[in-house]
């Protein structure tokens, strides 16, 4: 039994940490031509190239902005739909659930192409709003599913209790439900941001190049054989969800009954 944690550690290091470290090392060095026998030449050329690109900053902020709005909408839609699915008596609930999940079963590209015509006519094509709406398609079904499951775990009894005690809707939401939904909030945050951030095709179609997100700048570089620039770009890409996750974590602390790290140390 003592072997287990060690084995876990070795596997984690080998398959998770090592690749990331190699990626980081490559991003700070000239492309490594491994069989030539030479070691890594440390340099910052790839980051210089990256940060020189005037589109990078603009695209990064656009991506963050879109990701943030998509996340907010996901939380609102997910929480209310998840709660409704748990509490409202409904005939044929499995059908409704299946219907709500269907956008992830149909290829999102097909949806985007169909929606594109509609969005052009409605004046939403080539706008940030259009991109936000299309990013809801591959994210909302997951959020609904996650919040729905969490509400079911909380159980009806727990939801009826505050109602009986005379709490209003929002008071109940903020003091009881959201604190209990913290794990779900975390999952939804991470999932939504990562999905929204990595949408290339649908952003290109609906955003039409007028809305420039990070993948639109980044993905063409996948066709480059320059491993250093690729690594630097990948790390840049990975930092965004981590930063946003941290921010959301800070926001979650504001919920009632949160154990603040600087208080209640037990």
């Amino acid at each position, binding site marked *: 039994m003592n072997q287990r944690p060690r084995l876990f550690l070795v596997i984690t290091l080998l398959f998770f940490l090592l690749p990331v470290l190699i990626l980081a090392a490559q991003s700070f060095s000239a*492309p490594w*031509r491994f069989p030539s026998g030479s070691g890594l030449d440390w340099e910052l050329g790839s980051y210089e190239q990256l940060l020189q690109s005037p589109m990078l900053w603009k695209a990064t902020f656009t991506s963050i902005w879109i990701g943030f709005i998509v996340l907010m909408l996901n939380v609102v839609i997910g929480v209310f739909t998840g709660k409704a699915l748990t509490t409202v008596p409904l005939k044929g609930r499995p059908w409704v659930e299946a219907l709500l999940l269907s956008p992830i079963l149909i290829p999102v590209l097909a949806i985007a192409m169909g929606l594109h015509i509609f969005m052009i006519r409605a004046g939403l094509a080539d706008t940030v709003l259009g991109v936000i709406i299309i990013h809801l398609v591959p994210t909302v079904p997951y959020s609904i599913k996650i919040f729905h499951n969490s509400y079911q775990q909380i159980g009806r009894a727990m939801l009826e209790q505050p109602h009986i005690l005379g709490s209003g809707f929002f008071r109940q939401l903020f003091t009881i439900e959201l604190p209990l939904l913290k794990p779900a909030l975390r999952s939804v945050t991470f999932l939504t941001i990562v999905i929204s951030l990595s949408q290339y095709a649908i952003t290109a*179609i609906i955003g039409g190049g007028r809305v420039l997100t990070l993948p*639109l700048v980044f993905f063409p570089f996948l*066709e480059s054989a*320059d*491993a250093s*620039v690729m690594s630097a770009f990948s790390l840049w890409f990975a930092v965004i969800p981590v930063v946003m996750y941290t921010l959301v974590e800070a926001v979650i602390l504001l919920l009632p009954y949160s154990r603040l790290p600087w208080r209640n140390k037990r």
Partner: protein
Amino acid sequence: MKKKGLLMLFMTLLLAACSSGGSQEEAWKDMSWEAVEEEADGTEVRLYMWGGDEGINRYIDEWAAPRLKEAHNITLERVPMDAAEILQKLQTEKQAGKQDGPIDIIWINGENFKNAKENELLAGSFTNKLPNFNEYYDTEDPAFQTDFGTSVEGMEAPWGKVQFVFYYDADQISEPPSSFAELQNWIHDHPGKFTYPRAEDFSGNAFLRHVLYAQAEEPSNIYENSLSEADIQPAAESTWAYLKDIQPDLWRSGEHYPNDLTELDRLYSQGEVWMTMGYNESRAESLIEDGVFPESTRSFVLEPGSIGNTHFLSIPFNSSNPPGALAAINFLLSPEAQLAKFKPDYWGENTPISFDQLPEDMKQEFEAVDRGESVLSTERLEESFLPESEAAYVEWMKEQWFDEIVQP
């Protein structure tokens, strides 16, 4: 029922609102050049182009855009997008009847041009309006008249040209092969040190078409004729025989081919194979500088020759600023812009401009450019130049290569 009716009404209104807004803006076709430049003054032009090369991006962002702003007060915005996606977008916009599209200029050639032209996604003939094109380019050049066998009809303006070359590491290979027969022997002598990308890849397909050219009696039998499977039967047969013959001595015994040129480049970069290839005779320069390719990388071409093609700038049917697009294209075709593109600092790409039509001092500047050691001389490239075949050969090669080489 009532709800449905309302929805229908809403949709019809939407449709009506859209179609009425679409007045054809074709006024630019009858404008004088002075009027075009006047109209273009102070406008914004959006150039949609593939964005995967830092050198090309920097040429537009750092060299072209500021100078265009200064000279003509036009703001040039580069938007990174693949040609196939641009066409998809235009197609949908056409379907939806959108007349004020966001795209003003597209970078295009070959199959994409053919599709765009056939689906009427382009604004129409415009090259005869461009002063720089008429003055400095050989307008009758067959390379500008047809694009992969599709008649250009003035719907796109030549921006650059590239030729297909092979790259090798001079430290490993002292004397590169000079014909496809010699390449065959070289592969057998150095098993595992050569491979080519799959036929689905743009560059891999070009390699295969080179083999087809080499196996035909005359390369002109292929590029001068439209595709007829019966006519090229003998050449096709010996092409498959050639490819099957080299297959066992390819990298990984030919059981696996690189999916695209990038993969082949990585193999070459790692020293797994000793040769790579690709359009753009000067593309190794920046890769050497970045340390991706070894410094001893040089290039060569094989008998019977090397295929080259021209790439173009065009204007989509629903550009909201055709005068601005015309002025910007005219600027990008100017000798100054072409010279900067020709120098290895940014892009290092060959120019379609005609040296004989340039003023003497400009001509000298072009001739004085040192393109780098990995680039073959202009004479060598010109004497080995072969035109592209019709675009249909590309599709044919994809299917046949899979059936003949991968399947058995």
